């Protein structure tokens, strides 16, 4: 399916919903940045501003029963999977009503109820876990799939190779989504990785590989749909490399000074939100309608944040709960 076909396959309401999700993710991340400055968030956080189309495009192609795993840069995927804004904010602020009761934090947002099996903070470590989720689906005779989001940096760690190999040899229903934002922490990809096209690594595992523009939400969605169809048909995994860019540094202490001059600005010209608005314009949706989506997203995010701030810290006794189920 081409991106144009994907556009036409979606009605105006569905397209506006993709726009809403991308706005909410960006506004959420901007709010998290402010919360840090205000001292309301501890530790570190890893923002996905600029990469919203990856999570929204892929997750929009998922069906009930499908599951996702993602990284510590996972706020966007968490929201795109359908986790509530308020409980996501609350988790990052360490509140009792947070998604994980305040035990996980920014890097471990999890909402199993919406199919988000977890956000994992050791680079590459969740790839084998996502393979296991795919294995279980086939073992139980379900036709659901496992989607695993990770960054370009993860393609140089052993767990990546073990996971792709096992998923390929067992033809498991999994889609490996590589968000190539060109930097593994502070290091440019060409300084750490001898292949420019990470998707080429799929061929080492005789695996279907696709490379696409990660800032085009409809193109991402179309690639995800094709990969899911391949997986559901029992044809095995896909490595889907999506080219994108993080507008902020690796984490809150990183100003991103290692980036060449003009690079960020050039990528901002390819803002995934602006590009979807252009598509909506082509689709005959007027500007006030799109603006209204943004305004409504601003209100939703602001209200969710106020709710989260009003919630209490966890009970001290809760720290002993959840280690084991007995």
């Amino acid at each position, binding site marked *: 399916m081409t991106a144009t076909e994907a556009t036409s396959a979606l009605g105006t309401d569905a397209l506006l919903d993709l726009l809403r999700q991308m706005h909410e993710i960006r506004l959420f991340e901007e709010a998290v940045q402010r919360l840090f400055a205000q001292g309301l968030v501890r530790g570190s956080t890893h923002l996905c501003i600029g990469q919203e189309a990856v999570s929204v495009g892929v997750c929009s192609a998922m069906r009930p029963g499908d*599951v996702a*795993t993602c990284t510590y840069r996972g706020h966007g995927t968490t929201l795109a999977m359908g986790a509530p804004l308020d409980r996501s904010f609350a988790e990052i602020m360490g509140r009792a009503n947070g*998604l*994980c*009761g*305040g*035990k*996980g934090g920014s890097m*471990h947002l*999890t*909402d*199993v*109820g919406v199919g988000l*099996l*977890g956000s*994992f903070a*050791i680079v590459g*470590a*969740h*790839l*084998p*876990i*996502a*393979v*296991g*989720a*795919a*294995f*279980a*689906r086939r*073992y*139980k005779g379900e036709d659901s799939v*496992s989607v695993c989001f990770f960054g370009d940096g993860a393609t140089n760690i*052993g*767990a990546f190779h*073990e*996971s792709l*190999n*096992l998923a390929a*040899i067992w033809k498991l229903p999994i889609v490996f989504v590589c968000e190539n934002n060109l930097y593994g922490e502070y290091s440019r990809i060409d300084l750490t990785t001898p292949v420019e096209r990470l998707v080429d690594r799929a061929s080492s595992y005789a695996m279907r590989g696709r490379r696409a523009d990660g800032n085009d939400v409809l193109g991402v969605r179309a690639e995800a749909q094709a990969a899911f169809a391949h997986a559901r048909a029992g044809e095995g995994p896909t490595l889907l490399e999506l080219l994108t860019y993080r507008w902020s540094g690796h984490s809150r202490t990183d100003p991103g000074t290692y980036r060449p001059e003009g690079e960020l600005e050039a990528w901002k010209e390819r803002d995934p939100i602006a590009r979807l608005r252009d598509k909506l314009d082509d689709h005959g949706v007027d500007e006030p309608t799109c603006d209204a989506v943004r305004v409504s997203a601003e209100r939703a995010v602001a209200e969710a944040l106020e709710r989260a701030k009003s919630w209490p810290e966890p009970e001290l006794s809760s720290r002993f*709960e*959840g*280690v*084991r*189920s*007995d």
Partner: protein
Amino acid sequence: MTDTTYRKAVIQALADELAADETVFLIGEDIAAAGGVFKTTEALVDRFGAKRVLDTPISEQAIIGTAIGAAASGLRPVAEIMFADFAGVCFDQIANQLAKYRYMTNGQVNLPVTIRLINGAGSGFGAQHSQAVENWFLNVAGLKICVPATPADAYGLLRAAIRDPDPVLVFEHKGLLGIQGPLSENGGAPDIGVAEIIRPGRDATVVVTQLMRQRTLDAADALASDGVELEVIDLRTLVPFDARTVGESVQRTSRLVCVQECQNFGSWGASVAAHVLEQQFDYLDGPPHLIGGDETPIPFAQNLEEAWIPSADRITTEIRRVLAE
């Protein structure tokens, strides 16, 4: 009840759980077609099929991660790490993922994962295939650790581990695979976390696991001829630690000795000793004593390896000396 071997007890436990629960599956290197390098999964693939007994590539991270993801999706995996030393290859998956995943998500996932690891020295496998590595995991909250020494305990604890709703590491000692014993002792299967007094005595509490069990019983026989009666406790499970059985024994004997197949610093014996010092100090007639391996990797040559592992003679000599102090 007829005797069986430790190895056959393991196979029987796996077979019984595979038969009892469709969600149980086995995953590991050479466990299916080859029946396991130590033949502890022999013929299970013939009985239960390739869907449920799966050979993998040599990929320990993928084995354990697959088990974690499958468990989070409602299955009950039993993963094998062929030599326990290889746990180093997948330490992240065990210590950072498996152990922490449930807690970090506030209990959103249940992880009924069993990992079987073939442990231990004495067979001439050299430094990278011989270490008893259960101590690596003592400082990781979220894991239960079983160390069976008899066919009955291997059978009972492995079944209990597979049925347990949480992660359990079961260390099977390669030096014990051939020993014989009944499949069920004392009328039932042991629960995880329950130690056993395997020889009652009044003069010292001696805590052991696995290969050290028989050597310490031999030492106890030798000391009995001097009129010294050791109370020998097989822990069977390191985590959760059966503090009550050990503590009550020390209250009776006033002495604690731990005999272990590992260096003493950073060991389970050191943790047991610290616990007893805190809880039973007033009952003790002397400091706890640890008998362990040297602080070196395990050497290959037979005489060097045998010198590394506490022998019955060394255990006898050290306990005699400690009790004379």
